[in-house]
């Protein structure tokens, strides 16, 4: 039970990292990134390929240290964001969102089919878990929780500092009124690009954090529901533009998501097999309640920070 809870906290923290990144892009800059999963996936696969041991099934087996995996994940996600940003940042609002969604689906197809690179649907195994050898495997969760928790704290502090600075003020300005910001002498395109790249790098780091916990990665994890839409839910429930709020939102949504598993014991068998749909219903209800009663998010009333 306790290890279940630790596992919940680890995955919750990883989602919280992704939610912070989305909050930077959407909550502050107004970039409707519906391709979170793409950067999450890029980070996950980059780190997996860089750090896993020798293999004949796919490219890689570089066996680099885990830290290199994290750095590589951030660089590849950021680099791809830079390339995508050139055409995509010309689009505004909903069209940007659709473009990113399409890019995610395209990259997902590449990952599924280019098995020389990613081993296709079979996935990559044997991804190293940091400090796995030095502790009792039974207690490994605690170690990883400390790593991921520290990462979350570090990223939270970095983002909180950035959005309070003049840099963040310009992002908020763009989020509110891009034309006015441009007429105030700020190169909006450059700032949108910076926000897009920085946020996407953090999403890549979240992906790396995921694979070094599970030790395995396959394309199933990166369907838009589990890698993009759930993060949007977390941000909306937590409070768009509120960093502490979206962390709380991430844990709350994730708690409801995994908590619904426990329900299977208490409901008739016919319903239990459909629990996956019921959890979506729950999450939908939570979103509805939040939007109706606390449109600023569960931690509303706090100043933006």
């Amino acid at each position, binding site marked *: 039970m306790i290890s279940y809870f630790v596992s919940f906290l680890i995955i919750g923290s990883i989602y919280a990292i992704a939610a912070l990144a989305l909050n930077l892009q959407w909550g502050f800059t107004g970039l409707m990134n519906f391709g979170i999963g793409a950067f999450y996936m890029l980070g996950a696969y980059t780190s997996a390929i860089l750090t896993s041991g020798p293999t004949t099934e796919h490219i890689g087996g570089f066996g680099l240290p885990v830290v290199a995996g994290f750095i590589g994940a951030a660089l590849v996600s950021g680099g791809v964001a830079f390339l995508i940003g050139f055409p995509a940042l010309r689009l505004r609002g909903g069209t940007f969102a659709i473009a990113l969604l399409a890019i995610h689906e395209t990259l997902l197809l590449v990952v599924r089919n280019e098995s020389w690179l990613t081993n296709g649907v079979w996935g990559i195994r044997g991804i190293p878990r940091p400090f796995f050898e030095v502790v009792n495997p039974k207690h490994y969760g605690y170690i990883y929780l400390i790593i991921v928790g520290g990462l979350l704290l570090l990223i939270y502090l*970095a983002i909180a*500092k*950035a959005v309070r*600075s*003049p*840099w*963040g*003020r*310009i992002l*908020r*300005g763009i989020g*509110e*009124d891009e*034309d*006015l*910001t*441009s*007429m*105030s*002498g*700020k*190169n*909006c395109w450059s700032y949108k690009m*910076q926000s897009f790249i*920085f946020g996407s790098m953090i999403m890549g780091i979240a992906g790396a954090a995921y694979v070094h916990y599970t030790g395995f990665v396959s394309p199933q994890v990166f369907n838009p529901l589990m890698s993009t839409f759930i993060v949007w839910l977390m941000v909306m429930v937590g409070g768009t533009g509120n960093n502490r709020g979206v962390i709380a939102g991430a844990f709350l949504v994730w708690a409801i998501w995994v908590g619904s598993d426990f329900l299977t014991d208490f409901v008739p068998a016919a319903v239990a097999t459909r629990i996956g749909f019921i959890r979506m219903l729950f999450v939908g209800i939570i979103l509805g309640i939040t939007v109706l009663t606390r449109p600023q998010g569960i931690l509303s009333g706090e100043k933006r920070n």
Partner: protein
Amino acid sequence: MLKVNKINKHFGGVQAICDCTLEVEKGTITGLIGPNGAGKTTLFNVITGFYKPGSGQIHFNDEDITGLQPYQIFRRGLFRTFQITREYKEMSVLENLLLIPKGQVGERLWNVWFKAKTIAEQEQENLDKAQEILEFLEMKSKKDMPAKHLPGGEKKLLELGRMMMVDLDMVLLDEPGAGIPPILQNKVLDYIKKMSRERGLTLFVVEHDMNVIMNLCDPIIVMTDGSVLTQGSPEEVRSDKRVIQAYLGQNPSEHHT
């Protein structure tokens, strides 16, 4: 200082600006008047890079600025205010001002984490300046209020406050007096005159209030139907029959001639 040469701009079939040519001399407060729909605000939008002109050139300080991005034009020292006020609604009044200064150290992401001290010093400088401006505009008590809660007149003042945050060569003011209480209006107009006299700031002002225009501006340019009708001193413009016609419609006796 500002030369507009044969600018054309149309939206679909509507010719908003038609072969418009005009010049604003350095150090003057030039007025721009004309009936509604004459193209004054569109001209401002074209000059500041918000719209691309269909044809023609704009020179500012002897440099061709046609087709530059709005932020590039701002950086050359040309600023504008809006007829319908624009402000960052969710930001505080103070933040609305703090965003404006050019080249802040903290505008670079890397510096945010590694040059915190320099940024803090610069922020304090800008903060002092902003407080001073708010005091002048009699808005100091509202500095932490989200700008969306300001009454219309004070939103107008906030735009002027933004202008005061930076050193500029030229400012385009779109109806600066509208919606401001008369006493404060005088204060603001005095400030504009003072800026012009002491710092050589060039101003180009659209205004509907004829008292403001006649007291503040010289020369005055009159626009109708997207091009310049005439220009001259306040007296000349006031006595020009064509100007009166443009405002009041064509004289019936001259119809069909």
